[in-house]
């Protein structure tokens, strides 16, 4: 798995951004995550796939403590994740997250959505925060909608705003939780294009998605999960052309076959 990362010219630094060591999580009696070991280097792009209920979303939500793990260790950017609220907030400031249902703040304009965290969490002056927000909105090609409210935008536009909102905090890692699953087919591309650009700029990304085209284009590693475990982990080419496990083969035949 390290070969995949070093093969890619974009990822030369060797420091670890995310480490998960023996992470376990239960919902009541239900064992959702079982002994997860995962290391993500700075600049690495990882795509996580698997059947629904396999724990992919739960796994990345543990990284910024939206879900609590009960056993094992998670270290983000060198900071171990503990119960300490200050520590959790510190980690969250350096980890961006994009949700399946965008979760934009409907009572704020697009621009305010992007400015609110830089202004209130990082204490940036309004002017500076707005200038930066406009920059990112331009990068996701939606600057002309800055004064509108999220409810006035299409799903694809909202998701691009959500990406810009995360980027405004200058995160070291971006987590994507099925960012295109709630979108109409014609809008998926506009979001994926933005994500590909982000990947090409060297952003560290963990992306839960079923967009296998995206995985082939940008991923350094593809991870297949089932029943709360990492079943297979490989560079995209061998992963798609020569999957090792039976379950991976079955899964791939189902989602690529239709």
């Amino acid at each position, binding site marked *: 798995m390290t070969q995949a990362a070093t093969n890619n010219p974009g990822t030369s630094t060797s420091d670890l951004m995310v480490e998960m060591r023996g992470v376990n999580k239960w919902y009541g009696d239900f064992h959702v995550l079982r002994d997860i070991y995962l290391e993500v280097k700075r600049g690495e792009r990882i795509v996580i796939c698997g059947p629904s209920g396999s724990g992919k979303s739960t796994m990345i939500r543990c990284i*910024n403590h*939206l879900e609590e793990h009960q056993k094992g260790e998670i270290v983000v950017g060198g900071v171990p994740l503990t119960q300490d*609220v200050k520590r959790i*907030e*510190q980690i*969250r*400031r350096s*980890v*961006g*997250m994009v*949700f399946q*249902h965008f*979760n*934009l*703040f*409907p*009572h704020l304009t697009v621009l305010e959505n992007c400015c*609110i*965290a830089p202004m*209130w*969490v990082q204490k940036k002056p309004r002017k500076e925060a707005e200038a930066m927000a406009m920059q990112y909105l331009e990068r996701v090609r939606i600057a002309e909608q800055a004064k509108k*409210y*999220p*409810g*006035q935008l299409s799903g694809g536009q909202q998701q691009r705003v*959500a990406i810009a*909102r*995360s980027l405004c*905090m200058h995160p070291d890692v971006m987590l994507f939780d099925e960012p295109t699953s709630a979108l109409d087919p014609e809008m998926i591309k506009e979001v994926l294009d933005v994500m590909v650009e982000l990947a090409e700029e060297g952003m560290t990304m963990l992306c839960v998605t079923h967009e296998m085209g995206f995985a082939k284009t940008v991923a350094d590693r593809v991870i297949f999960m089932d029943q709360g475990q990492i079943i297979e982990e490989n560079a995209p080419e061998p992963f798609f052309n020569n999957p090792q496990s039976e379950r991976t083969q079955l899964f791939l035949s189902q989602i690529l076959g239709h």
Partner: protein
Amino acid sequence: MIHNRTMIEPKPAPSSSVGPVAWLRSNLFNGPINTIFTLIGLYILYLLVVPTVQWAFINADWVGTTRDDCSREGACWVFINARFTQFIYGLYPRSEIWRANIVFAGFFTLIAWLAIPRLPFKHWVAVFALVGFPVIAYVLLHGGYFDLPRVPTHRWGGLMLTLLLATVGMVGALPIGIVLALGRRSNMPIVKSFCVIFIEFWRGVPLITVLFMASVMLPLFLPSDMSVDRLVRALIGLTLFQSAYMAEVIRGGLQAIPKGQEEAAAALGMTYWKRMGLIILPQALKMMIPGIVNTFISLFKDTTLVMIIGLFDLLGIVQAALADSRWLGFSLEGYVFAAFMFWIFCFSMSRYSQYLERKLHTGHKR
């Protein structure tokens, strides 16, 4: 197959479908049954409205000083005129009424300033209304400072007292209600239990009991040399009682906000209070406007219950005036006047809340 048809220019609708006549026809007379209902409705309205107008306006007496000035064919508004000062200020000394008038003027000016969107410096005015104005109002009404003679609270009354109780109740109950609602949703067991017990206790007892306890039982538990003003006790009881109701209204609104909102705010590194203050509460409060105003209106009317602990609010003072032997027999006028005053305030609140809802709704429908 049809293609390349010439476009049809827009034309005005036929005159039979627009205008007042068409409205009448389609809404009131669009069939035999509806026509019968309309006619019966109009007849009932006629039976009710004509005598009311005759009693309240046409046959009513407006000027005079004693009951002999009333012909008794219609309403005797002379009674209201003669007692008007008392209805507004209670037993507040006549010579000091200018102080109450300054407070009234300040109160209505501040409300108008905050309610009219065009006026500037909203933040500073709001801060002044919540911090500076209560102090000024207290100094003016109560006196004892700057050579102003003291006017003890048992002489306050009438509309002044009603507005005081209602305003303090509303301004106090909203923030306490927000804190209680947040506490009830908290993960911290002690905070949560405290809030649940508090809310359930206050919601479970009638307001009359609360006021009785505040006036009769509280002094039993306090050291004998310590006495709390009766009005203050009523205010505290009323505020805590209403904050429990407010908490449940607000909790309902908080629950309607999707979980993703808090997750998104948390993922941006916001602390609990920022998530609540910047993301959750602004959305929830907007949705809760009807519920909050409903609570405010019922609070406003509940203030009449302070009568039973010997405070003379608007209704209490009207009732006291009815017992005056010089003015026996005018209870209808007295109650109509009291009802009308309450209605004006409650209706204004209701209209303002509808206006607020419309205003906040624009722009971001979900």
